[in-house]
């Protein structure tokens, strides 16, 4: 071990003991914890999809289709001595104890799963043990939450369509559940051979058929090659390499967004590191002067501090990683309800990333300061005024931009994008800084004739305006995010719900068959639901635009990809539906005589733009194995708030009639009439009723969890802001101590100082809260207008909350940070003057 390394180790121990490194350590811990909590979590999710990939499919190869898999595909697999299993999954409503519940049904044939094992239990939320068995015919295995929602116990019977199944086990784990990632409705597992009896599979049912295949690598390769050429237009093959990228991309995107949420925390932590380092450097001038007097050379001093900071960075990053790990456990707990698999231990990469970030930001923000220590003149031991020059905030700003750039590039993986985000961030911060400066000036102007404590407190902000501005912006951004999240989660969602008419439909009825239409209309009418509209639905997949084939690869947008890879519902109508407005082209009944063609369609404008479809384009769909082409003769804008069925694509009557269809309707059900649903399902078991209130409840639940996750990240921002505040107090400590001592020596009381400190930080908090309220209101305006389509109502309460929480919260934190300054007797500080 080198001499300087040993010396660094000793110095580190001494500085750590003296508390000089506390804030610096806290800053690094916050930065590393905020980022590593996300990277740990994302890493564990990614590992699920990498290490347990074979299990994910419960097979080696899967043929998927919205229609039953062609028999020849099954036969050939069987001839090739491959293991096979068939399954069908679809949502449906089940009935038990006079309650209904939307479930996700999976019906499987023998041999399922071909890879991995099922886990079952005899009691709800039990741990579960592996099994190779399946539910017997006439039985079902269900997830614990279904047992609770329908008040079931083992042995009870549950109505699934036209048949009843006995619940024989609790389903704890199914290997291919992971590929669905998030699930809202609980699972019901039953036998494929019982499917027929349920009579649930009708035209328009949202069924996904799968043929699972497993065998040796060569057999699978051979089968794959053969099957590829025999697939129908609706069938597709999925193997491990097809299944993973999409999920991986989704996780990486989630990680990226959350990491960007932690960006502000990292930058603030960077500022705290810089301020604390400056303070550390100042307190070490004497050390270095003495080192030099005792014969230490500049090189030695540099080496000592390099090692000291490196060792310190490693130690603080390790603690940060530990906190990050604990926090990600929190994240995992938050989404536990929605994740269908257990998470493995994290790999090495988030740990390495944590160290790189911790040490990197420490080097970046502190070395420009530390490097100056070597320039301390030894003569300082005699002349105390001698000290190396510091670069102040200039080097902090420079380091911030460098860190921001590197971090953005790492997260976004694209320099051009990183530069765009960097410029946007700088503009945002500059705008916030400008508003902050203006507000400060107003406060100073109003403050001229106020009491001493106010004058002193506010003068403190102005005197340290650079540090004050950084605190205002940091707290402002953190509070803004939290305020906006709470506005969206509570105010806007409630506003949206209350903006719906009281009698807006809250139940959707789907899967109504042609031959049931008359009876079901009659049934509704008998129960007092008259004049309900029933809309036809034909399922089709878009395959060509202007005779040019389209595939998911042609689009970057995930929604557009989905649009061309799946079947969607098409409908027809003579009249333009309520709250639909033609914005381009003309609706058929108004068409002039020039266009009498039957092959006309109207498309929703946002989706048309998403897919690059223009008025006059010809779209080709495959419907039940046949192709159909039609021209887009109008583009519509839809107000979705009517809660009535709406369709992206509506055809001219007559065009879609030859194809198999089902019907959909919606109605308003009073809570007291809940048993009407049971009657409806009993009478028409194949019909699925979707309760909008439950769906909204579930969306809200998911949103709450997602928001909680994001809020989690912004809590780090506030902690980072607090660390900056503490660092700023620490940096001005000597000055404050001297001033405080003088004021007290001249007869000022402690309470005067306490008041002025509170005022100083409360005003910083007030401005930050005001900035947060302004920013959150602007963002809420855009969200309500562009995403939720509701009237924007500016709420005074948001401003009140922002300013109140900002001023009182930050005022108290400031008071907490500066309390020690007034605890010391004035003489102690005066002696140092």
């Amino acid at each position: 071990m080198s001499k300087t390394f040993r010396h660094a180790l000793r110095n580190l121990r001494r500085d750590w003991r003296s508390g000089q490194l506390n804030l610096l350590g806290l800053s690094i811990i916050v930065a590393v914890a905020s980022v590593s909590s996300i990277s740990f979590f994302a890493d564990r999710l990614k590992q699920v999809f990498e290490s347990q990939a074979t299990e994910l499919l419960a097979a080696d190869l899967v043929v998927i289709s919205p229609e039953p898999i062609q028999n020849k595909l099954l036969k050939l697999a069987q001839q090739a001595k491959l293991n096979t299993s068939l399954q069908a999954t679809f949502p449906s409503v089940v009935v038990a104890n006079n309650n209904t519940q939307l479930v996700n049904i999976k019906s499987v044939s023998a041999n399922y799963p071909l890879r991995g094992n099922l886990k079952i239990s005899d009691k709800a939320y039990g741990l579960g043990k592996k099994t190779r068995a399946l539910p017997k015919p006439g039985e079902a295995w269900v997830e614990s939450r279904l047992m609770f929602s329908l008040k079931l116990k083992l042995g009870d019977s549950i109505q699934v369509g036209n048949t009843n199944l006995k619940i024989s086990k609790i389903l704890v784990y199914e290997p291919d559940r992971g590929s669905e990632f998030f699930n809202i409705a609980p699972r019901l597992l039953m036998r494929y051979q019982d499917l027929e009896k349920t009579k649930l599979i009708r035209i328009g049912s949202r069924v996904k058929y799968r043929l699972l295949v497993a065998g040796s690598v060569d057999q699978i390769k051979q089968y794959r090659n053969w099957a590829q050429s025999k697939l129908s237009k609706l069938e597709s093959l999925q193997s491990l390499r097809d299944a993973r990228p999409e999920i991986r991309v989704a996780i990486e995107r989630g990680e990226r967004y959350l990491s960007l949420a932690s960006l502000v925390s990292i930058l603030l932590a960077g500022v705290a590191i810089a301020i604390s380092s400056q303070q550390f450097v100042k307190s070490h001038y004497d050390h270095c002067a003495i080192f030099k007097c005792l014969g230490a050379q500049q090189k030695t001093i540099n080496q000592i501090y390099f090692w000291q900071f490196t060792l310190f960075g490693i130690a603080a990053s390790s603690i940060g990683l530990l906190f990050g790990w604990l926090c990600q456990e929190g994240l995992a707990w938050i989404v536990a309800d929605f994740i269908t698999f257990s998470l493995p231990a994290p790999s090495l990469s988030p740990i390495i990333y944590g160290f790189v970030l911790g040490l990197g930001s420490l080097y970046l923000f502190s070395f420009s300061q530390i490097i100056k220590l070597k320039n301390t003149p030894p003569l300082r031991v005699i002349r105390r005024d001698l000290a190396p020059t510091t670069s102040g905030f200039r080097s902090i700003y420079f380091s911030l931009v460098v860190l921001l750039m590197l971090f953005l590039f790492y997260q976004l993986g694209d320099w051009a994008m990183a530069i765009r985000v960097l410029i946007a961030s700088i503009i945002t911060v500059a705008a916030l800084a400008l508003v902050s400066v203006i507000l400060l000036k107003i406060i100073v102007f109003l403050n001229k004739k106020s009491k001493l404590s106010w004058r002193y407190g506010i003068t403190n902000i102005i005197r340290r305006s650079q540090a004050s501005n950084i605190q205002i912006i940091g707290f402002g951004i953190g509070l803004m995010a939290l305020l906006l999240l709470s506005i969206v989660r509570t105010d806007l969602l409630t506003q949206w719900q209350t903006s719906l008419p009281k009698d807006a439909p809250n139940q959707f009825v789907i899967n109504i068959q042609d031959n049931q239409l008359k009876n079901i209309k009659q049934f509704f009418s008998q129960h007092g639901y008259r004049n309900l509209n029933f809309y036809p639905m034909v399922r089709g997949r878009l395959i060509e635009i202007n005779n040019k084939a389209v595939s998911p690869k042609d689009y970057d947008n995930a929604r557009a990809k989905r649009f061309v890879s799946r079947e969607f519902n098409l409908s027809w109508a003579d009249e333009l539906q309520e709250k639909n407005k033609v914005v381009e082209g003309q609706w058929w009944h108004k068409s002039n005589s020039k266009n009498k063609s039957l092959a006309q369609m109207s498309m929703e404008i946002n989706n048309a733009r998403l897919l690059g479809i223009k008025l006059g384009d010809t779209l080709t769909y495959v419907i039940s194995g046949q192709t159909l082409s039609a021209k887009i003769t109008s583009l519509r804008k839809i107000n979705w708030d009517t809660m009535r069925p709406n369709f992206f694509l509506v055809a001219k009557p007559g065009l879609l009639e030859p194809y198999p269809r089902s019907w959909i309707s919606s109605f308003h059900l009073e809570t007291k009439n809940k048993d009407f649903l049971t009657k409806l399902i009993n009478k028409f078991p194949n019909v699925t009723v979707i309760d909008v209130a439950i769906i909204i409840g579930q969306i809200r639940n998911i949103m709450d969890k997602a928001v909680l996750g994001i809020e989690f990240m912004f809590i780090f921002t506030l902690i980072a802001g607090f660390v900056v505040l503490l660092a700023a107090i620490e940096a001005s400590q000597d000055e404050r101590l001297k001033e405080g001592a003088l004021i007290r020596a001249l007869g000022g009381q402690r309470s005067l100082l306490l008041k002025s400190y509170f005022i100083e930080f409360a005003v910083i908090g007030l401005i930050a809260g005001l900035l947060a309220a302004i920013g959150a209101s602007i963002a809420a305006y855009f969200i309500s207008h562009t995403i939720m389509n509701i009237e924007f109502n500016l709420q005074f309460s948001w401003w009140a909350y922002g300013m109140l929480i900002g001023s009182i919260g930050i005022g108290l934190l400031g008071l907490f940070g500066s309390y020690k300054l007034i605890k010391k007797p004035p003489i102690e500080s005066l002696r140092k003057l």
Partner: protein
Amino acid sequence: MSEQTRINIVQASHLVKQVQSPEGPLTILDDITLNIEAGKTVAITGASGSGKSTLLSILASLDVPSSGQVHLLGKNINELDEDNRAKLRAGSVGFVFQSFHLLPNMTALENVLLPLELDNDPDADTKAKQVLDLVGLSKRTRHYPNQLSGGEQQRVAIARAYSITPKILFADEPTGNLDQATGSKIIDLLFELHANSSTTLVMVTHDANLSPHCDYHFEMSAGKLSV
């Protein structure tokens, strides 16, 4: 006294130190020539602002003169850069200051250990404890500077200076921050340690009573030196 010890450990000739002030250049040291023999005790006295601390800092190689030559331990400090001057001081030059200059985050023992650690001395711990014992602070080794009295702090500073058995020790107003009784004890200690070692002692003080105890006495006045 052998021929060798009569060698001048410090040789200064025609030293001038000027600094810039709003009223133009200010001469702090004005043509000072001085030789200090190894192993001797030297007192430099003078009123506040007479330039005695500036002279000490140049003689100790902490600063360089505007003109003139200084040889410390046989080396011309004008020809050395800051690092080489530090190298020259390492293990050979000790300091005691008016304001003690103990590092507040280190215990008494750690302060004394500092120069030994910088010198990578394998027996640092033993030596530091011995010298603390010598200055009568063996029971205060784990105390921090703010837990010690002024006199005790200065003893730690002396122990730190003597821990490396320096060839020369510069003391800048060593009793300046102490009351008279404590100051006398510190002076006694300095002379006692000097008597037990061959260290040259150069002391800057405004206390004229000290001069009779020293082998040589110089008086500073308005930047000029008189014997």
